[in-house]
């Protein structure tokens, strides 16, 4: 036997080996594929396969990883293993179902969740000072019929107090007009509080208040007089502040 012949022989044996392995890997892949189908189908239908059956299936594909070439084949292999795991879980839970009543299992689960809880710490109960407990409820009194006339008289006398105020909406122009009027009425003059109350209406007083806060007009109290002037030196008044409450007579 020449060297040439021997090398030929080794080459041919290698090729047969490769052919065999490629055949073998095809068979293995076929088995993997079929088993994967079988398990995913049974899992979908929630059919439990026996322990022995699962175990023989697992043994059939134990060495399969050695013959896997492509990524697709590896994916099928891992999918099958996931199928095995899920099947084992399904089997366990089905055994548990047979062993324990549903309520018992739920109770156990609830207990488990309760145990895993690391609760927030707080003091129970309501605050000791409760505003709702203070007796602020309006009390109704029975009116004796003889007093009715008196009440009517009282209402007539105090109609102004009992009247519901209507809110007036002023446009920007209205406000400017009021401000102009107020300048004319008040600027560089001095008034007593009562005089002002008779002179101004409710709306005018509101606007005067706004003007003072916006520093459009300056008011200084001198004795019992209120002196109005235009933009004076505010710095000299800094830190001095007082308020005068006006209750205008006009509406």
């Amino acid at each position, binding site marked *: 036997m020449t060297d040439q012949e021997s090398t030929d022989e080794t080459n041919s044996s290698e090729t047969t080996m490769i052919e065999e392995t490629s055949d073998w890997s095809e068979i293995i892949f076929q088995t993997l594929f079929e088993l994967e189908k079988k398990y995913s189908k049974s899992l979908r239908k929630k059919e439990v396969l026996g322990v022995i059956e699962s175990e023989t299936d697992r043994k059939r594909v134990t060495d399969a990883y050695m013959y896997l070439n492509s990524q697709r084949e590896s994916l099928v292999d891992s999918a099958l293993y996931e199928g095995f795991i899920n099947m084992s879980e399904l089997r366990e839970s089905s055994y*548990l179902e047979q062993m324990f009543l*549903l309520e018992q299992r*739920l109770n156990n*689960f*609830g207990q488990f*969740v309760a145990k895993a809880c690391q*609760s*927030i710490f707080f003091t129970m109960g309501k605050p000791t000072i409760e505003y709702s407990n203070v007796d602020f409820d309006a009390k109704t009194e029975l009116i004796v019929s003889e007093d009715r006339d008196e009440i009517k008289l009282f209402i007539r006398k105090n109609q102004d107090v009992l009247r519901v105020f209507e809110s007036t909406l002023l446009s920007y122009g209205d406000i400017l007009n009021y401000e102009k009027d107020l300048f004319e009425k008040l600027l560089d003059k001095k008034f007593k509080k009562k005089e002002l109350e008779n002179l101004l209406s409710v709306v005018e007083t509101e606007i005067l208040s706004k003007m003072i806060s916006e520093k459009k007009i300056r008011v200084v109290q001198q004795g019992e007089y209120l002196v109005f002037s235009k933009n004076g030196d505010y710095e000299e008044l800094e830190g001095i502040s007082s308020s005068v409450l006006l209750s205008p007579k006009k509406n």
Partner: protein
Amino acid sequence: MEEKFQNNDEVLNDKTEIVKLPAAITDEEKSELFKELTTILSRRWVKNKIFVFGSSEIDLLLATRFDIDTLREIIEEYKRFVEILGLEVVEYTLDGDTWYSLKSAFYAPSELLKSEFIVLGTIIGILETQTGPLLTKKIKEKLIDTNRMKAYQVDLCLRKLTQQGYIKRHQNVLSYNYRTLVEYGEKERRKIAEEFRKI
């Protein structure tokens, strides 16, 4: 005399080592502050119809008039203080604000009933395993359609869990609220999900 001075210096040095807070806060003030912190952090309030615990950082800043760094420093000190009592200071976020409250380091009785724990466990079990939004319908499917619980029971539990700050309900989508995340760590939630698969 010299020895005395040295001793005094040592005492002073010791003191400066012990006092870690800004010099403006004396030990007496600090103990008063810790008492007040314990009271405020163990309170329960109602905010937007949901129970919240402890106090927000902004409220603490307003009440103490500290700057943020001083407040955080004090809370760090306070954490070490309550650790001895078996408590933990927890931080959680609520509507963008940071809140502080106390949590038991070991075990504290919970207010929830067994049925509420079951519903909460189911929600955790599903939320931990799925990625999409969790609809109320799915909880009902899991618990009512399989005859595990009654429909009114599940509704009641969901309402209480929402009120207690465990879950948020936006239309029909359920998600975790701050309390689940505070009381159940990531590991616990994963364990619950595993248990849930078994039932």
